[in-house]
């Protein structure tokens, strides 16, 4: 009986670690908050389900400010900012452990350039003013009009829009 339990736990663990990889349907994601799942990517589309914080989701596609997702219970569209990409934090922890074990912690991605510094608090503390670099930076200063021409070249048009209020 005890062994059975152990086995179950092991299987459970293995599955949870593997699931992000097996998510053939789409990218793994996690709900950041409670939200309504809708039939279509519109605020007034029919409700087809709901999302609870930390629900695992499969992200199928993105359309404007909406993501098409699938959960265990339902499928439909939710607002983009309600879902974070990547599996839940427990899976991340697993990954961290593996990285440490394989000596990859601290690098994460492969960095080909050596000798390029990171920017630690210590580096910043020890930093000395560099006039030459400052002058270089200043030499690139552009006017508001320069910005405007650059925008026009890219077909960007300014939009009138108020700032957002902070949520509670």
């Amino acid at each position: 009986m005890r062994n059975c339990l152990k086995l179950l736990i092991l299987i459970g663990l293995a599955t949870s670690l593997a699931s992000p990889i097996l998510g053939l349907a789409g990218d793994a994601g996690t709900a950041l908050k409670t939200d309504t799942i809708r039939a279509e990517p519109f605020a007034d589309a029919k409700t087809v389900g709901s999302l609870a914080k930390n629900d695992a989701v499969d992200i199928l596609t993105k359309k404007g400010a909406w993501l098409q997702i699938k959960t265990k219970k339902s499928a439909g569209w939710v607002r983009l900012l309600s879902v974070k990409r990547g599996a839940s934090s427990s899976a991340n922890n697993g990954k961290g452990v593996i990285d440490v074990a394989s000596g990859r912690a601290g690098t994460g991605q492969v960095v080909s350039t050596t000798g390029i510094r990171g920017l630690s608090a210590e580096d910043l503390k020890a930093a000395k003013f560099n006039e030459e670099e400052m002058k270089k930076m200043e030499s690139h200063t552009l006017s508001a009009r320069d910005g405007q021409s650059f925008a026009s070249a890219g077909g960007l048009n300014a939009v009138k829009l108020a700032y957002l209020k902070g949520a509670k």
Partner: protein
Amino acid sequence: MNKLLFSLFLAAGIFGTFSIPQAQALDFGKVLKDAVKDKVEEVKNGGETPAPAASPNNASSPAVETSASPAATPAVATSPAQPEFNWKNPSQQEEIALGREITGSLLGAAPLVKDEALQKYVNQVGRWVANQSERADLPWKFGVIESNDLNAFAAPGGYVLITKGLYQKLHSEAQLAGVLGHEIAHVVKKHQLKVLQKQQLLGYGAGKLSDLLGKNDKLAKKALGTGAEISARSLDKDAEFEADRMGMILATRAGYDAYGLADVLQTIGQTNKNDSSVALLFKTHPAPDERLAKLGDSVGGNLDNIKAGKTLENRLYKLN
């Protein structure tokens, strides 16, 4: 101690998490928050001048060539004989001079990427986004620095730096606009400047800093040797959330896809927390998840009627 207080300056990075920084920062932030309210009021109302406290000797590194002396403005009142940095109400020039010192130190830690076209491009995007803000009149300056970290920094007066590491994670101009928008917002709201002001009004290192920017080049050089240290500090969490909200809107006003900044936060959120490239970022900012969720709460349906903006993947300058 002086050094620590000092280092408060800059603050900012962009992306990352805002957990509590080192012990000192913790103390400082907490103490400050509580103490400052009354003190600032006191100073405001009573005109009581904070005592210049620290002796100017601790700053170690000789740094900078000093920028324009912000002489013109009347001093706070400690020593009317000499021009001093007006901490109570710094002029735009003073703000810029301060930002220059801090940014110059940061450049001492990580120089600009030697790619003129890249630097020009980042200034073009940044300038256009900054045009959408209330402080379009500042002489905005942007730069990409040689570091594999994922981070970005702002300093008073319109200085914004982004690391090469973060730049290389970007997939579109809209994402760059979102990142720069967040930093621009810090400048517009004077987040870093306010922290420095509070520090000064409380009398911490007043002697140093006023000397530093006001009258004496040598002192300035000494004192600002630690200028970049402030970049290793956290701002108030709410200041980061505010910069996210504003940055998103600034980029959207500029005609970009509204979700560029959110995309980048997603990318950062997927970076292994143990990765050294995000160490400083995560130390100085709220967790990406929290930032995304907050942003989502604020956005709600507010952008539903905005015409979809541009992402401009193809115009994003590719680094070799």
